[in-house]
């Protein structure tokens, strides 16, 4: 039998060894399996959660939590079609927001409907294949084979839904349209609304606006070959429309002035901003609290902060309130914290302070 102190030393030593041991590596296959399970569970239209934030909120952390913050592919070469495709005809519908970035969707004999709750529904026609490149605030789909038809909910923000087909890039704001790949050409039919079509790789070229009802055939270079309009041909040059700065190679940083469209704060952005606020509060607590006689002073308060769309902390409330000097200092300093631009948010966090 080990003596108590001796046993404690052994326990400490072996615990240190266990802490240093890294354990099993997470399996790369886990992510794919997980998203397949989620996709098969979420059959049919999904409703937007009451807060409106839920879609982004669950998508972002699951993706982040899994280490699946996949690099956003800007060029078609980055699309990995070698990954095991999701054979989508096995389910009646797919929630596009849970499909892993760069996963390939294949419609075999039946068409496949992909829904992005409250934003867009697109249908992959039989024999077609596509991959969801982005499904966050912007939905970006690459059509790999066949044809797809999309209905996009009108939205004031630009570039909310983009289809890449061959060398053509079709971006829409609120419309019903179909894109098909025919050989090395792409055909865009606009049933309703308006779409901007531009070569995928030609940042310098201005996009064409195709206004419904009309269609255009675009060549392997992404330029318009022929256009067919039904009753009212409306193909317009759109010199005032600029592509997003992120897709304009060669621009100096100073020229990149286009603000990002407002989005809901991701968990990472919330945590980064909250960390700054908590640091400010902690600093104030240390500056304005003087423990006497070796007594440890602790305080706990729930802080509610209101974040403006510009990312500023506009309001800060403590329950229960802190001591007046600590609270005044915290309110002043915490307001210097900057969150990412967003649609705004109210965040509540418990802070525990001690000195």
């Amino acid at each position, binding site marked *: 039998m080990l003596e108590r102190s001796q046993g404690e030393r052994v*326990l400490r030593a*072996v615990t240190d*060894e*266990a802490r240093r041991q890294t354990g099993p590596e997470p*399996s790369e296959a886990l*992510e794919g*399996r*997980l998203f397949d*399970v989620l996709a098969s569970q979420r059959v049919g239209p999904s409703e937007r959660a009451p807060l409106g934030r839920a879609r982004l909120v*669950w998508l972002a952390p699951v993706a982040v939590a899994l280490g699946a913050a996949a690099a956003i592919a800007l060029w078609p070469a980055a699309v990995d079609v070698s990954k095991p495709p999701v054979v989508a005809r096995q389910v009646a519908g797919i929630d596009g927001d849970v499909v892993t970035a760069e996963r390939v969707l294949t419609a075999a004999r039946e068409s496949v409907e992909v829904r992005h709750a409250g934003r867009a529904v697109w249908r992959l026609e039989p024999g077609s294949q596509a991959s969801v490149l982005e499904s966050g605030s912007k939905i970006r789909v690459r059509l790999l084979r066949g044809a797809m038809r999309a209905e996009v909910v009108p939205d004031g923000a630009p570039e909310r839904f983009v289809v890449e087909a061959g060398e053509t890039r079709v971006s829409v704001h609120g419309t019903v349209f179909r894109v098909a790949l025919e050989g090395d050409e792409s055909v865009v039919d606009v049933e309703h609304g308006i779409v901007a079509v531009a070569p995928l790789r030609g940042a310098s070229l201005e996009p064409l606006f195709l206004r419904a009802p009309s269609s255009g055939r675009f060549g392997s270079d992404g330029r318009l070959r022929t256009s067919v309009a039904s009753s009212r041909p409306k193909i317009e040059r759109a010199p005032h429309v600029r592509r997003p700065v992120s897709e304009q190679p060669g621009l100096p940083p100073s020229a990149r002035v286009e603000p990002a469209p407002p989005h809901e704060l991701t968990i990472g952005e919330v945590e980064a901003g909250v960390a700054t606020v908590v640091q400010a509060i902690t600093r104030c607590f240390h500056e304005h609290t003087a423990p006497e006689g070796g007594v440890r002073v602790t305080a706990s308060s729930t802080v509610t902060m209101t974040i403006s769309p510009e990312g500023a902390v506009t309001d800060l409330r403590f329950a229960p309130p802190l001591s007046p000097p600590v609270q005044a200092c915290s309110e002043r300093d915490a307001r210097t914290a900057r969150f990412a631009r967003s649609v705004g948010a109210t965040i509540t966090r418990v802070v525990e302070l001690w000195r």
Partner: protein
Amino acid sequence: MHRADVTRLVHRLLAGSADVEDVVQEVFLQVHKSLKDFRFGSRFSTWLYRVTVNVVLMQRRSARSRPVFIDAVDAPTPRDEALLPDEQAARARRVEALFRLLSRLSDKKRVVYVLHELEGHSPTEIAKIVGAPILTVRTRLFYARRELVQLLHEEPSLARLAVELEASAALPSGADPEKEPA
């Protein structure tokens, strides 16, 4: 990043069981289901750890209620009586032995021990994760340590470590334990 953290925590809470990957998958499914309830009232990682702990405990409960083969019941817990080829293998055996001992603790004690001693969380954080008062967490930690110390002698590799530690403590500082005294 979270995937690695969750995998490591599950591995430790399951005390080296082979079901780690299934449980990790269940954790993230649970995260998906429950995320709408997350209101930023705590750090996301704290919430994620809480989900992980709950899933592991559920898994262990259901595993206990599953029928087990007689062989598995009768099979004695493997002990490491074999000779150790080198220090690395010896360490691995000691860690395995610790996990065996951890698996003999109650769920509550094992969870706080793993979260505090292996994952490095403070009692305050653990209190949030397990939903218990800080004092309770400290009490569980105290009894977990005491129980583990009492169980140490049942693992030969840990008993050997005690001898080694005692021998190294007896040596004057800077002395090489491998070297024969002059």
